[in-house]
């Protein structure tokens, strides 16, 4: 899905999910590891931490969007 959006629209698509090997296998180019399968962008338990974790991943996504890459890249930070 990510690959086809990127190809069709010709725009960078950042993929945030938990299982990095699957993202690499299906051909996503800009990859950000999520937190857990049921809550890739959340840390349930503490409201503040939950939001902070999500914000961090969103900021990292914006960075990935503006970064030039020439192959599949995992943005770990």
């Amino acid at each position, binding site marked *: 899905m990510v690959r086809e959006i990127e190809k069709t629209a010709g725009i960078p698509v950042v993929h945030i999910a*938990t*299982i990095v*090997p*699957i993202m690499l296998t299906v051909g996503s180019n800009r990859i950000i590891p999520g937190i*857990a399968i049921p809550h890739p962008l959340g840390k349930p338990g503490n409201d503040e931490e939950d939001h902070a974790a999500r914000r961090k991943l969103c900021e990292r996504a914006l960075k990935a969007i503006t970064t030039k890459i020439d192959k599949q890249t995992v943005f770990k930070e």
Partner: protein
Amino acid sequence: MKLELRQAFVRDVQWGEKTQMKEGVLFIDKADALSLLAEEKRFTHLDMDLARPGESVRIIPVKDVIEPRCKLEGKGECFPGFIGGSETVGNGATLVLKGAAVVTVGPIVSIQEGLVDMSGPGTEYNPYGATCNVCLLVQPAAGIEKKEYETALREAGIRLAWYIADKCRDAAIDRSDVYEMADSVEGKAAECGSNLPRFVYVCQAISQGLLHDTFLYGVDVKQILPTLVQPQEIMDGAMISANCVSACDKQNTFHHQNNPVVMELCARHGKDLNFLGVIVTTEMMTLVGKIRSSEYTVKLAQMLGAQVAIITEEGCGNPDTDICMNAKNLELAGIKTVVIGNEVAGQNGASQGLADVTPEMNAYVSCGNINELVELPPMKKIIGDIRAIANVSGGDEKSIGSDGTIVCEIQSIIGSTNELGCSKIGCEWI
């Protein structure tokens, strides 16, 4: 460990004054059986029904299927952690009511329940069209959480299965099979000689939270590190399904009790292979969890001196990463692997069937494309609620025809693409 499975063949099931086996007929005292659950506050309604092979009956939505078993001799009780204590099972003698099953039915918990047909083409896909089924029907209490409801129904099914076996302790035994093997690696080597390839069985159990769990000796496996189990313990109900992944590839408790990989490896132990034991591992919902379990699995296999591993998957999608990691890591450790799984190839069969792949996974046994459509003719009697098909994975509102015909993906049939390799189904290129 030495376990004797004493099997009483059940050819029919009937209501009776007393729960007992008589000349191949299982009689159920309904009132007595239901009184087992009289104290259960988590259900508002309880009932039972019977379904026999060949009848025009459809059971839906089915959660779990359990084979009635109890210990006749030896330590502990079947279904450890749920019935009786937590002593190690797998020794002595166990009564099996072969040909009988308890089927738990109730309003849908999530999307992952399925259907069982007692006649017609649906019976080709699982063993339950050929068993005499004692169906437990429940309605959850108002306001009960899904997790509680699942727990209640899981426990009720196990208790009923054990109760039935317990009442039939004096049943005539039609067949007895002894499963005996040494406990230690050295003992097994002495039994098999040094030339036979040393096999482990890596059993991936889904462990992803609410309604996606498996229990081992009563312990939720998402809390364990991969661990070692003797095959006979599995036969005594050490593994319990609490599992609602898609109906087609959720491993029912019945599947675990009769795990075909375990049974087949036992049958061939000392003949053409040396069966070292079962590694029960997890399918976690974090990458770090997946990596930890896979690494640990390899280590256990190495500690046993394994040369070959059979890996079974449960579910599809992210567990594909677990089979890939296990195949890759074991192969890199010099252990030959074969994976049993299924495919998600689309209704037309033209799609790629796996979410994750790796070149090391070069020996894959496919137990079918879960998306293939099947037409199931109408049945005269429905046990449960036919409307549930609309919410079952593989079905939708349009699945039911006006005459009761169901057109759905085989995904909706319990056990249709079971990844322990229970049935003869496979998938091929055309």
